[in-house]
């Protein structure tokens, strides 16, 4: 399409609005970085006119379509496009229109011949021009302009009258007759103080308060742009800034000025000449009590000057004045010196940011640094940050990250060299996000470089996802493991599992024990028995396989199924070379067999009991022979068997059998357990006493206490003495 208009955004992007209803955004180097659609209607009907405007640190666009509808995008960042209310009777191009931003809402002032409308998204109002209606007979308003602050507006009629007023149209500051009916090429506000009319061969500067007019001849054609405190005049070979002379500057430099700043400057000059007048001047200032003001004035004016020599002279004057003050905070002097040093540097033609102090203050330092970064003046930006001691994350770190992001896009340099260069530069800077730089490298298709860069990234949660995106699952998993963050490891594991065949997955994960263990844990948690078995088998972990199978045997109540499973487990333990496990599994098989037989024979539950419990239960039920067989079959040691039998007999109140047992042969565990069993099971003191005699004398007392026969105890005690 055709470019309707173009201009700069706040962050120095070039925006070109095409008649096809689209705006293209370019960076400083002419690379297109974005495009903005200006609405369906604009696309279909095309655009006849468009205006780009800046407000509240963002740029906006208003377009006029061929069917005379206004669309506004108040912030190009969020791209929301909205239609403005149509003024009545607009079926031809309005004679002029201008964008107003008041309280963050975008309005358009539309002039249709003599009528003025203020149109917004929500409403439209007709405006009344003060001080001109009825006095001057004009047919249309041909040109309008607002000040950068959107406080003031000026308009020109077809009769050549310039009207200057406030944007609420309540005040008229003045009307000036240009005495010509030609429309000026351009009308721009110079700060908030004057309107500049570009007549092609000369500029006319009109100030309303009081009405003053000055003309400035132009050599060659010129383009004017507004800045917050002046007008930039760009001709084919010059770039000038037109602005109001600040009051302070006037006071200090005006011939014969009696302002304290002027006197201080004079004093300094006299001092340099070695004249005693210096003293005289200083005395005057001091007696007036305005030395402080004088210093401040010199500092301030220095800031407003462009010539470093003049700046230096003024600062020298301030410094000279300072030496006559007992207590004077040097802060403003230091600040100004620092700022001027920066300003002088960026004003250098090689950098090319010729801005005024006011503009600098308006931009703020971070934005300035951004602009330097955008222009790839990394070194200067770094120097400024170092000079002003700006903390790393706002200064150095940010600049170097940008530098590195740019660096990775250098097409002709080797991956290795770039990685090395970046590592060298960024080595000792904390807080660099290598992941961001790597992502940049990835975005231009340099995967190898991205991986190399990610190696420097200390934050695994930045590193791992990016590696996965680049299909480097194994590296990602390794990095996750290094971080120790299980969540990341899981993320990498599942990503890996999703990309690989199961067998391949197992082989990969086998090399990383930490991941393997976590995966096993996950399988356990979701109770995926089969997967667990797969893992165990895959890695020949027969012991684990044995355990899993043995465990699964408990899931069934069918004895035969159980035995099958246990047999399988026993084989696994055998393969795992765990004889103890194998033997106990075989024992368990035998026990299960016996228990199921006994269940049918005795009609009592036995399965799920341990061997000890089984023996105990058999004795308790009086099946002593069966119990004895159990002892033999399972080689229950004598001593344990005695313990079990004594307790079971006592519990079942088989006192006679217990006594018989005690006499069957010498107890391998002594006779105290007999006493204990009688007492603990049924508190049967009579039975207990039967065995006390056979307890060694030294322990008898203890037994008596248990029985509760204290007197006997005393007698035993006496006896033992």
């Amino acid at each position: 399409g055709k470019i309707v208009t173009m201009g700069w955004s706040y962050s120095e992007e070039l925006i070109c609005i095409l008649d096809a209803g689209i705006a293209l955004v370019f960076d400083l180097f002419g690379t297109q970085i974005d495009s903005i659609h200006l609405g369906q209607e604009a696309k279909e009907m095309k655009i006849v006119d468009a205006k780009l405007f800046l407000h509240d640190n963002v740029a906006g666009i208003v377009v006029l379509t061929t069917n005379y509808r206004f669309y506004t995008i108040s912030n190009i960042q969020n791209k929301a496009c909205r239609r403005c209310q149509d003024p009545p009777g607009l079926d031809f191009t309005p004679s002029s229109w201008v964008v107003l931003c008041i309280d963050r809402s975008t309005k358009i002032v539309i002039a249709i011949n003599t009528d003025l409308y203020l149109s917004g998204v929500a409403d439209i109002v007709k405006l009344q021009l003060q001080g001109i209606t009825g006095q001057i007979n004009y047919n249309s308003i041909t040109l309008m302009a607002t000040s950068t602050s959107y406080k003031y507006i000026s308009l020109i009629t077809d009769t050549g009258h310039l009207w200057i007023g406030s944007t609420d149209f309540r005040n008229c500051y003045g009307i000036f007759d240009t005495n010509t009916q030609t429309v000026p090429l351009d009308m721009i506000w110079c700060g908030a103080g004057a309107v500049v009319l570009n007549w092609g061969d000369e500029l006319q500067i009109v100030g309303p308060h009081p009405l003053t007019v000055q003309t400035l001849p132009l050599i060659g054609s010129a383009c004017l742009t507004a800045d917050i405190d002046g007008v930039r005049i760009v001709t084919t070979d010059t770039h000038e800034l037109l602005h109001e002379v600040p009051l302070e500057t006037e006071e200090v430099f005006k011939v014969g000025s009696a302002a304290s700043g002027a006197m201080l400057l004079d004093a300094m000059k006299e001092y340099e000449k070695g004249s005693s007048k210096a003293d005289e001047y200083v005395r005057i200032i001091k007696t007036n009590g305005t030395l402080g003001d004088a210093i401040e004035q010199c500092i301030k004016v220095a800031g407003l000057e462009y010539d470093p020599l003049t700046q230096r002279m003024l600062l020298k004057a301030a410094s000279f004045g300072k030496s006559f003050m007992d207590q004077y905070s040097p802060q403003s002097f230091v600040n100004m010196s620092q700022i001027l040093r920066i300003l002088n540097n960026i004003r250098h033609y090689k950098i090319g940011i010729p801005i005024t102090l006011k503009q600098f203050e308006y931009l703020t330092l971070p934005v300035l640094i951004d602009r330097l970064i955008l222009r790839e003046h990394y070194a200067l930006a770094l120097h400024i940050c170092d000079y002003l001691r700006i903390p790393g994350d706002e200064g150095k770190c940010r600049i170097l990250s940008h530098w590195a992001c740019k660096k990775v896009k250098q097409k002709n340099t080797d991956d290795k060299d770039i990685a090395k260069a970046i590592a060298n530069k960024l080595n000792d800077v904390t807080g660099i996000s290598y992941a961001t730089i790597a992502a940049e490298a990835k975005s231009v298709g340099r995967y190898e470089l991205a991986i190399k860069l990610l190696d420097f990234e200390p934050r695994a949660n930045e590193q791992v996802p990016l590696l996965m995106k680049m299909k480097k699952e194994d590296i990602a998993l390794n990095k996750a493991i290094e971080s120790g963050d299980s969540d990341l490891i899981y993320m990498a594991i599942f990503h890996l599992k999703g990309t690989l065949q199961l067998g391949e997955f197992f082989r990969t994960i086998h090399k990383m024990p930490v991941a393997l263990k976590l995966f096993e844990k996950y399988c356990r948690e979701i109770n995926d028995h089969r997967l667990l078995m797969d893992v165990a088998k895959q890695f020949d972990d027969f012991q684990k396989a044995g355990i899993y199978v043995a465990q699964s045997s408990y899931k069934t109540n069918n004895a035969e199924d159980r035995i099958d499973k246990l047999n399988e487990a026993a084989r696994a333990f055998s393969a795992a070379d765990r004889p103890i496990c194998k033997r106990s599994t075989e024992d368990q098989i035998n026990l299960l067999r016996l228990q199921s037989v006994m269940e049918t024979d005795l009609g009592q539950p036995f399965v799920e009991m341990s061997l000890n419990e089984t023996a105990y239960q058999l004795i308790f039920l009086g099946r002593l022979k069966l119990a004895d067989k159990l002892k033999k079959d399972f080689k229950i040691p004598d001593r344990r068997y005695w313990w079990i039998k004594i307790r079971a007999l006592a519990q079942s109140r088989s006192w006679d059998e217990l006594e018989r047992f005690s006499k069957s042969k010498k107890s391998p565990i002594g006779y105290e357990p007999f006493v204990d069993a009688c007492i603990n099971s049924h508190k049967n003191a009579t039975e207990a006493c039967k065995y006390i005699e056979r307890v060694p004398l030294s322990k008898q007392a203890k037994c008596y206490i248990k029985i509760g026969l204290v007197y006997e105890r005393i007698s035993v005690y006496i006896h033992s003495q």
Partner: protein
Amino acid sequence: MATNSSFAHLSTSGRVNLGIVRDASRRELSECLRQCPGSKTVVWDEYLFDPLDLVAEFSLLQELEVRKMFPLAPGRLPPHDQQNIIFFTRPKLSLMKWVAENVASEMKKSRTKYDVKFSLFFVPRKSLLCEDKLKELEVFADFEVIGEFNLLLLLFDYDLMSLELELAFRECHLEEDYSSLYYVARSLMILQTIFGTIPKIIYKGNCGKRVANMIVRMRKETSGPDDQTKSQISRLILVDRTVDLITPVLSQLTYEGLIDEHVGLKCTKFPGELLKQRDHGSANPEEDTQSAAIRQTVRLNSGDNLYAEIRDLNFQAVPPILSRQAKKISAAYAERHDAVSVNQIKQFVTKLPSIQAAKKSLANHTTIAEMLKKITDDSAFRDKLQFEQEMIATVDIDKINMYIEELLATGQPITKVLRLICLQSLVSNGLKPKLFEFYCKEILQAYGYEYLPTLINLEKVGLLTTQQPKIFSSIRKALRLLVDDINEQQPTDISFAYSGYAPLSVRLAQYFTEDKQSWKGVEEVLKTIPGEFSEIAQQIPGGLSDKGMEKNDTTLVFFIGGCTYAEIAALRFLSKQEEGNDFIIATTKLLNGTSLLETLIDDMSKAAAKSN
């Protein structure tokens, strides 16, 4: 935020004010709840109840417009009328199902009644697995907020913090899942942001090494300017539990240790119904409603002056102090008889609340002490103790122990038996293969085949092993672990906590903090103990060099895998020994031998039932 009075002791007593840690958690909890404006119902993973109690009292939650609280349970939520429903849960897959069920049932209800807003906070951090699970269960999108409540360190006392990760030991040494170490490292990063970079890290044990490495790494990760907080903690000692497994399996003999072993302390809470029961004589405990039990809950911490005095003493020394306290209180009460003038009466009245509090505390501790006395006087306890002392002191004990045999045959709790068998294995650095097999067979025959995985577990973590290099006797000698003439009333050495045995873990901590000249031959012995050992110096940000640090020497001992109350008692004893030589203690979990073993027991029949 006002710290409520029952936690006032946390911030006042210590040199390093750990109270800040609790304040930070409270702030974070408030922020979580404020993300969901309006009155709300909160559903808690039940496991978090006790930790939460340490962070926020109910009035704080009320202030934050919490109207109802429910434990997380399957199915539908109990009736409530709030539109804001907030879940707080650990990142556990099994819990996600419950959360999903709750949400689904509420959604069904809401279509007819009102719109409900759901939020979910993971404690202590989000987990991808859980989020995926929620997506799978099709409730993920129903949550307005999914966040995390970074509750890691729970402040138990002015010098004691716990992560309450009960499975940390199991996970690290059995499952080789090191997630808990990540939490340890994160918690240490939090402590370092509050109390400044710790200049020196000493670790013993492989988990210690992992944590140390993670801290160093995380420090690199945190971007931005170096932290400008002055170091208040001069040294960090990371003790891997596997370095000293003997201490936890031994019976703790301090007052607090005994309470934990025989009653159980849950985040410093003592079950109040045990005290109440006695008050009412034969009151049936089942009649106690749960709410009454909650009201009765007694918090045991240094807020109770008497408890602070006796908790770390060997139990032998406790009764005399209790009777002395009784006399003191009756003397204080008696003052009212001397009070004649109005002024004197006034004075007495102002003192009355504190006397009453002291009386209440005395009554509680007398009850507890009597209960413990009954246990310690019992022959079962004394037999066990005798066995332990024998094990610790003897040189060659590689034979079948009759006492263990008796316990096996008489069906004692398996944890009790395992503790003692593990002790025998540990002091002899592994059993002879024959003996090992004998014990294994005995256990399986006595308790059932389903404990086979448990035995394998114990072997894996090193609690029950076959022959290893014999090092215990040389360690015992070099580090003076066995102290003969101990004075339980007026101890001179940390061995008081186990009546004659100095816990190795604490001995090491002592060694690391003291002048090493006086320790002969320790360095060599230290090398023989399995587990990596090293020191790392952390760079202190410029301008914060250790000026004035020499006087205030605070050591943070972090037990990775848990520690016992008796070990804490021993460290507190060291703190008191030398002015300006303070210990603060952190652990993954407060444990005892039984609770440690319980985490390692895998019962196949139960596991099978769970998975069905």
